């Protein structure tokens, strides 16, 4: 899995991307966030308020219940502010 982080999500985690095998139990985006938060204070801080964390899997917006798979590109970011 390739994980990407943007804006203050990136700042709290301390890196813009990382690659890892899909952790056991990480079947959905939400479960993945739980597992990452348990292992890292930076991830816990970034994902503390789930309402403010938006997610895209393979460059398409998804809900937190969306399933994740081994070869996915999963991006985490705040609500967008372009335009």
């Amino acid at each position, binding site marked *: 899995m390739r994980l990407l982080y943007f804006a203050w999500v990136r700042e709290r985690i301390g890196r813009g991307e990382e690659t890892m095998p899909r952790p056991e139990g990480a079947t959905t985006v939400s479960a993945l966030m739980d597992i990452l938060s348990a292992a890292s204070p930076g991830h816990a801080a970034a994902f503390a308020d789930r309402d403010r964390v938006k997610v895209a899997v393979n460059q398409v917006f998804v809900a937190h219940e969306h399933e994740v798979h081994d070869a996915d590109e999963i991006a985490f970011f705040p609500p967008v502010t372009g*335009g």
Partner: protein
Amino acid sequence: MIRVTSEPFDIAAEICALTDGRTDVGAVVSFTGLVRDLSQDVAGEAAISAMTLEHYPGMTERALEAIETEARDRWPLTGVTIVHRYGRLEPGDQIVLVVTASAHRRAAFEAADFLMDYLKTRAPFWKREETPEGSVWVEARAHDDAAADRWRSEH
């Protein structure tokens, strides 16, 4: 036509690109978004000296293409151009351009309005403002979500 770039754009050239050599276009509408010198922060607008736009390369283009496709599905358009900049910008700088062309003006006006509302809620860009108090990430506004929502019931 979508372009995501750090460079400024030429509004007149982009308009001409949708009309040159054509006689079926009756209406062209353009919207330009610029960096203002005051923060959008509600609590006493702070002066901003610069704004940096971060984006998600790959998804940015894809999201804008999807928004263009939706506009073309809803309105009879002969052309659509969206140019969105990223990087460090200063007050007065261009941020975004939307141009729509059609046989008649209603489609061109409505599509341009729609494209901006959708772009502001679905395009993966994030703004960081430099103010006298330091750098802050701009917060998404409920006003923009509401603006995008109104297009849902009007379909």
